[in-house]
């Protein structure tokens, strides 16, 4: 392809945008709206995943050892637990350590536990981390079979709830995104249709003098692509600005979970929003060309 030809395509694309500026503005607006919602959903679900991961990491099964089991057997129990499938880590928390931790948790009120050192009512326990949270129930059943284990603590339901919400949001955001993309493509294709209509005379002359189909199509594709790109860049700015604002706001109120910082998500967001915008634009013009540009 000649450079002068490529320059022609781009010039014509921009000319159309300018000639058709009101409609172009309208479609850029729609693209921005779609991409902002899209961006928000991505950020929301990415943070939910992030929090889900944190929960998974922090989450543990606690298996308590019978008081009557002598300390000498603890090693044997630990080895038996380690053999269970999906157990990633198994750490012994002795009754003394458990008491210490308890005191720490109570903080100022820890004086109520004073004197318990001699008659420690707590049990030795094993803190177990899994390689896959999904198999928690199975592991719990196995743990109960281990000789010397009397009780197993499992917060399976809480975990499952969080995982369910994450999955729900992920699916929901996917379908919302698909719907919005459809709307945006439709609106862009309408804009391009107007350009095609405005230039029908030119197009018919081009056909008569022997322009190839693609020569006629390219300026329209570029027009759609530019609309999508502008929409992508502007929505990126809005989403990032809003996200930074929200993160700063939440930073003070949420302390038990970490939220992703803008700097962590910016690059991904930029790539996703801008390329998604360009794709929507290109798709819109291709649709319009197929329907209205019978060359």
């Amino acid at each position, binding site marked *: 392809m*000649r450079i002068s030809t490529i320059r022609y395509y781009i010039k014509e694309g921009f000319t159309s945008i300018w000639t058709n500026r009101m409609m172009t503005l309208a479609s850029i607006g729609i693209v921005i709206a779609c991409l902002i919602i899209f961006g928000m959903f991505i950020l929301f679900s990415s943070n939910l995943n992030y929090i889900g991961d944190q929960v998974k990491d922090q989450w543990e099964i606690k298996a308590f050892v019978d008081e009557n089991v002598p300390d000498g057997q603890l090693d044997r129990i630990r080895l038996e637990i380690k053999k269970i499938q999906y157990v990633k880590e198994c750490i012994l928390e002795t009754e003394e350590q458990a008491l210490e931790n308890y005191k720490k948790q109570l903080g100022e009120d820890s004086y109520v536990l004073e004197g318990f050192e001699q008659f420690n009512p707590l049990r030795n326990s094993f803190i177990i981390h899994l390689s896959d949270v999904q198999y928690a129930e199975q592991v719990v059943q196995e743990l109960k079979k281990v000789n010397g284990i009397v009780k197993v603590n499992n917060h399976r339901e809480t975990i499952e709830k969080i995982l369910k919400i994450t999955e729900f949001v992920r699916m929901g955001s996917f379908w919302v995104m698909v719907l919005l993309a459809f709307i945006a493509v439709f609106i862009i294709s309408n804009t391009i249709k107007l350009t095609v209509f405005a230039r029908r005379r030119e197009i018919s*002359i081009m056909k*008569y*003098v*022997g*322009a190839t*189909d693609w020569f*006629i199509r390219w300026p329209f594709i570029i027009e759609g692509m530019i609309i999508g790109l502008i929409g992508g860049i502007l929505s990126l700015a809005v989403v990032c600005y809003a996200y930074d604002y929200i993160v700063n706001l939440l930073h003070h109120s949420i302390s038990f979970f970490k939220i992703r910082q803008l700097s962590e998500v910016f690059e991904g967001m930029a790539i996703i929003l801008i390329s998604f915008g360009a794709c929507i634009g290109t798709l819109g013009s291709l649709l319009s060309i197929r329907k209205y540009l019978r060359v």
Partner: protein
Amino acid sequence: MILLSHVSKTYSNGTVALNDVNIYIEKGEFVFIVGASGAGKSTLIKLLMKEEEPSEGIIVVNDFDVVSLRRKDIPYLRRSMGIVFQDFRLLPNKTVYENVAFAMKVVGAPPKEIRRQVPFLLSMVGLSNKARHYPHQLSGGEQQRVSLARALSNNPSILIADEPTGNLDPETAWDIVKLLNDVNKRGTTVVMATHAREIVDGMKKRVIALEKGVVVRDEQKGVYKYEN
């Protein structure tokens, strides 16, 4: 070279536009196609450009088998011919120069060649001094000359003129026909559909007469119509 062999065209609404037409036009000929409105002149031209498909028959233009030509090859068929319309079909927002250059640009001609060819064409049709004018600043005859320059811009071997003088007064019409004759003398095949009787009678060229989609007369040095 143009060949139509047993060509018929029936539109989907049932109108028979052409019926078993056989025409052979050699390279370098000047041919008038005459007939009343609705005789099939426009359909004939549309078939040559593959704007319409014949219902039956064989069409060959230059080296193109028009009927079996694939869609993506149509532009190359059209580049081998130039076309002039009754209503000029110039782009109103482009100057005379740009209108001609545009036709070269869309077939991917290098800018250098465009800069060389356009002034040459404009001087040939006598419009060098109006290169920067817009179509609305020109008379009908001048506009048709721009359209002729555009049709010739890619050096076609066939020039098709669909009632090129239909919108012009008789004197201007003659100027255009003389230009077409000049073009023909340089070796370009010229096919002119018309119902301008004085022109056809005055030129003494080959005349193909269509009536209700049938070739009723095809003769060298013909006239528009014999008196009954």
